[in-house]
């Protein structure tokens, strides 16, 4: 039953993803080909995975936040911060030892945890509305990042640092492994323990959850910390990939793409059920869309229009009402009751 639902949830996003990829085929015959160049698997698909890594990461974090009826606008700034911290810690080390690397990773991840926790505290303890609570960091975070880099775009000359976002392992980009790891952790933590259940129940009805003995405050705190952590990792990948820290532009507007990915993946902004796999697919859709726009030579000024249309199509395809009206798929559904403000759900 649940599996069945998951399927329907994932069905349309997957279709769209395939569609976008196939479109590329018309412009570039070799689009799906993957070859082994000097020990690295290369090919558009690999690139999409590789480039998409940061987005997938923050989307995973965002999914849990949204499942609790929350939202995290600060991820973009956190990316900038963690990148800045990471890069600055290794900026003026010329050594080849991996010591500074761990230093950088440790430092920025810890800080990102703290920062995420800060969001969590504002939301769960002070009771600030998520969008505003995280808006604060969205603004201030970039400032802090620039403060760290002194407004410069600091270039890193420390080779090992490039491994995080640029390195290869077993012929695959290392970032792919990072994503896989985080994703698995998230799935294990939420589905093999009761966390997932608690998150969903808090998101679906916080009062009732409290009366059922769930410590909803801590749950919220946790998801925001996790989101912060994910953003931190993403930040490291991004900054390591270009071997520099850019406080002002790193991760700019990522938050919107992340939220988009989550919703495309079938998780409702009204909280409750969440679908990590869906999110990943959503993120991949967005990334392959971007790559497509670049590689098929869409004029720069029309990028946004194209994006808008695709987003609309995905959402419409997911809307049961739309499918019924247009293709007449699916039985007639109750007009009211089920159709709360839950948005795109097929349940």
């Amino acid at each position, binding site marked *: 039953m649940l599996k069945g639902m998951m399927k329907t949830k994932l069905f349309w996003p997957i279709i769209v993803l395939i569609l976008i990829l196939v479109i590329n085929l018309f412009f570039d015959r070799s689009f799906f080909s993957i070859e082994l160049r000097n020990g690295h698997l290369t090919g558009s698909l690999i690139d999409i995975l590789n480039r998409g890594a940061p987005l997938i990461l923050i989307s995973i974090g965002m999914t849990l936040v949204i499942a609790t009826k929350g939202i995290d606008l600060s991820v973009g700034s956190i990316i900038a911060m963690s990148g800045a911290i990471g890069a600055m810690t290794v900026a003026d080390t010329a050594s080849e030892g991996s010591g500074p690397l761990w230093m950088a990773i440790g430092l920025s991840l810890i800080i990102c945890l703290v920062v995420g926790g800060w969001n969590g505290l504002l939301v769960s303890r002070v009771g600030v509305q998520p969008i505003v609570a995280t808006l604060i960091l969205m603004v201030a975070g970039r400032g802090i990042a620039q403060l760290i880099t*002194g407004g410069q775009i600091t270039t890193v000359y420390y080779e090992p640092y490039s491994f995080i976002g640029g390195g290869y392992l077993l012929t695959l980009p290392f970032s792919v492994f990072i994503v896989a790891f985080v994703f698995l952790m998230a799935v294990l933590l939420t589905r093999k323990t009761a966390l997932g259940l608690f998150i969903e129940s808090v998101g679906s009805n916080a009062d009732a959850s409290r009366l059922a003995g769930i410590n909803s405050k801590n749950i919220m705190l946790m998801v925001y910390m996790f989101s912060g952590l994910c953003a931190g990792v993403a930040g490291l990948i991004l900054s390591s990939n270009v071997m520099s820290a850019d406080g002002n532009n790193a991760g700019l507007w990522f938050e919107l793409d992340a939220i988009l990915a989550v919703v495309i993946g079938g998780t409702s902004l009204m909280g409750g059920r969440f679908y990590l796999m869906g999110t990943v697919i959503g993120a991949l859709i967005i990334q392959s869309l971007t790559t497509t726009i*670049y590689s098929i030579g869409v004029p720069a000024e029309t990028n946004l229009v194209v994006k808008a249309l695709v987003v609309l199509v995905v959402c419409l395809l997911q809307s049961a009402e739309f499918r019924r009206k247009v293709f007449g798929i699916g039985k007639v559904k109750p007009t009211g009751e089920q159709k709360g403000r839950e948005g795109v759900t097929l349940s």
Partner: protein
Amino acid sequence: GSTDESSGNGENTDNGTEQTAEDTKPEETNSDTEEKESDDQSAEKLVIGFSQVGAESEWRTANTKSIQNAIKDAGHELKFSDAQQKQENQIKAIRSFITQKVDAIVFSPVVETGFETVLREAKDAGIPVFLVDRAVDVDDDSLWVTFLGSDFVEEGRKAGNWLVEEMADQEGPVNIVELQGTVGSAPAIDRKQGFEEIVSKEDKFEIIKSQTGDFTRAKGKEVMEAFLKSDGENIDVLYSHNYDMAIGAIQAIEEYGLKPGEDIKIIGVDAVRGAFEAMADGKMNVTIECNPLFGPQLVELIEKHAAGGEIEKRIAVEESMYTMDQAEELLPTRKY
């Protein structure tokens, strides 16, 4: 408040970047011991309002520093406001400069248009306005004293000309890919225009792909990767609207397995220090200077005007163009 603000700059120095190190001390003294200073300063201590676009690029930060330091070193009082890339903020800032009755307003417009009203208010309040970096298109040029800054279109032309010479003996087609700046931003539009103006004269040149990289390294790299995927070896030239995108692109090219500077000729704008490093190790062929360090030049103008001197409406920042072979010896001399 100003106290935590200066201490903040303290932190800033810990993070070790010369520019901030330089300007911290004067700034602190400035904010702490104003009156005393003004006593020392016999006459002529001007209050100057400076409204900067933001800190969107390395170039911009350097520019800000240069102007800030120049003003303070000359012992004038600085009122700085950062518009966070928003025109409305900039207008607000200028308004409040007017209400604060500063002696001169310096600002680099976010865009050329839309400042007429507020400039008129400034004029009515009898405050001279100095435009830096970007012009405003207002018919009534009595609204500002002078415009000091680079000519983006000219930069584009320089890039084009260099390419034309470079490729003179090569018969086409020469496939060019272009990394634009942020869509709609003045430098992006003008640098594109100037460049196309030149290369379009010869039809062996073809701009096969042109996409925005938002002036950032990450985007520049991502876009270049996509270009390489679709057009690979038959890309001959990369024209990048700024240095950061060029660096990103260079990384992409290397990862793709080509030699930047040889397999693909690379033209970048902004002769920042990094650009020279890149050229020094042969990864970039030419960089067109767009000089941000005209602070002192500006302050002179302001003082001159305050003293009642005549100033012409358009003052170009002296800029030039540097190629690979010059890079080595010039590298040490680059300030930023």
